[in-house]
């Protein structure tokens, strides 16, 4: 192995990026496992919280929006109760927000991995994503259960994970980008969560895009997260899937992921100097 040329050849080639991650899949799996377990270690209910927290969230949504506000689904054409409408959008958004808001510390938080051992640091930003996907998976199971229970289940809803691919890629790209910047600029840890919160209100989580005034629509069209939320929620409500929307989101997200990887690989040389 010769150092000096490795990152250059990997850069901008999606197949190389994927094979590189695949090579470290076991390590990545271990890191994600540690990350998830560490969060619940020492808690009285332990890993049970993985089930409990989405369940509690769902119950609260059902109570507040189902019983108190008696809100109906955002889109006029769907009969979906608002709490399920909200929940399905939030699953998508949470994967993005959990990954991205934790990414600035994903590398910075492990200085010994960067400086003291031989370690594939490029997988570190993927750890929060892995954890977010674990949580997303349980959220999805509860969503399916709640859909069946309320009689809103469509077979299409099973395609939900597929619909998430663009948002996963997008989150990966941002994670690489912010993971690298977080090493150099500590402020990212403060800045990112603020932007994430803004993005939540600017994404169609609490409302459908159709409720947005026409003037502001372009803002939503340029936001891949909102495309994915709308698309995946469409699957849940049983509307015909517009795969072209998904395709556009996929292309944009793929580009973001590749650029994020490029930026990360380009700047990783300096990580050890800074940390």
């Amino acid at each position, binding site marked *: *192995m*010769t150092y000096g040329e490795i990152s250059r050849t990997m850069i901008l080639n999606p197949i190389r990026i994927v094979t590189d991650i695949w090579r470290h899949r*076991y*390590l990545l799996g*271990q890191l994600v496992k540690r990350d998830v377990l*560490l969060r619940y270690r020492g808690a009285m209910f332990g890993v049970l919280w993985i089930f409990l927290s989405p369940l509690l969230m769902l119950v609260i949504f059902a109570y507040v929006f189902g019983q108190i506000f008696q809100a109906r689904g955002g889109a006029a054409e769907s009969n979906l109760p608002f709490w399920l409408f909200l929940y399905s959008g939030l699953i998508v958004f949470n994967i993005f927000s959990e990954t991205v808001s934790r990414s600035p510390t994903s590398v910075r938080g492990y200085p010994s991995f960067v400086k003291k*051992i031989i370690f594939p640091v490029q997988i570190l930003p993927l750890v929060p994503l892995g954890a977010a996907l674990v949580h997303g998976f349980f959220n999805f199971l509860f969503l399916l259960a709640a859909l069946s229970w309320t009689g809103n289940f469509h077979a299409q809803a099973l395609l939900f994970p597929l619909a998430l691919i663009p948002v996963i890629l997008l989150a990966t790209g941002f994670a690489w980008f912010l993971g690298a910047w977080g090493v150099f*600029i500590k402020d990212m840890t403060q800045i990112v969560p603020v932007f994430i919160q803004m993005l939540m209100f600017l994404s169609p989580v609490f409302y459908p895009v159709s409720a947005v005034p026409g003037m502001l629509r372009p803002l939503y069209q340029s936001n891949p997260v909102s495309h994915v939320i709308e698309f995946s929620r469409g699957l849940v409500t049983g509307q015909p899937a517009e795969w072209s929307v998904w395709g556009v989101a996929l292309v944009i997200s793929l580009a973001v992921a590749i650029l994020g990887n490029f930026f990360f690989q380009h700047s990783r*040389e300096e990580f050890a100097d*800074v940390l």
Partner: protein
Amino acid sequence: MSSDDIAISVRNLGKTYRLFGHPGDRIKQFLSLGMKKYHNEFTALHDVSFDIKKGETVGIIGRNGSGKSTLLQLICGILKPTTGTVNVNGSISALLELGAGFNPEFTGRENVYFQGAVTGVSKEQMDARFDDIASFADIGEFIDQPVRTYSSGMFVRLAFAVASKLDAEVVILDEALAVGDIAFQARCFERIDQLRNNGATILLVSHSMQHILSHCDSALLLHRGGIAVSGRDVASVVADYEKSVRVGHEVSYPSGAKKNENMRTDIQEKRFGSFEAFIDTFEIEQDGVVTTVLKPGRETVFRCGIKATRSFRAVALGISIRKPGTADLWGDNNILAGRELALHEGWNLIEYAVDFPLSSGEYLVYCGLAAISGSKRVELDQRWPIEKVTVVTDRTQIGFIYAPARISVEA
């Protein structure tokens, strides 16, 4: 020499750090696209080239800040070279800092498997090695306790046990063994010798010249980011290091004694110092007879004949005894004895008399002379070892200490 024989090849290697005064300067630097300079530069390593053959054990020595750690990090690929290339033939296991990568919240067992995962050892492969690692670490039931509950000794043992069991072709140890106790260090070196016998290439950074002398095939002395000396004559590289550390400036050799001259090759003596004064003769006397076959419990005289090229106001003269590969079994010097020693120019004869305390067996006698001025110590002549002695006793006993039991039974 074909390139297949080379484990590590370093060419014109250099590393310059960019130092930013303020985090914002880094952003400015990034945005200025190299048009303007917002940082200072610090060159930790410049123009270093060397080859290390497969199966070689190389000691890397140098004062603090001479670039040792930077060099190792570059070889591991943790740092990116500013100039030049590093070529490593084979897998690397590095112990740059003990237990780096250990998570204190997880148990020893979990951390062992995780370290395996980091270096690409699968769970199945680790299962096969786990018992060996656990027994080497020797931490008993603690293996299933969180690492944060470990004592530093346990931590070290586990970390070394894992690193030495990753079956890497190149093993890099940075001061790894400085923390452990003597018994553990001895076991580590046993393990290192095992790795050597299996054909691993080993890089050893240590401030213990003794470790370097007894375990390395060649040595490399770094000074201010460059190679000062290197070569297979480990003793002479170590001697140069001792000079740079202890003296702080270059010392010319006196005409009477040249470096490495007059060494005891039969006992693999390593000899170094400035030789401004040197131990010319060394005799051991018992019952009025000069001998190397000793009996314990008798008064024994170590007689050093020292030639000095000038006078010294204060020197330290020490004698110690050890078994090959162990620490000192016995040692003493005039400083500990509270006795000031001076040398005058020319011939000095100094005698140390002791009641010889060791049991039967073969031992090596070490002798060292250093000049003392204030808190500074300058090695004049270190002879490791200077003599081999055989001790005979009238009856067998266990261990190294002569203390035969007198047994009586009360009526």
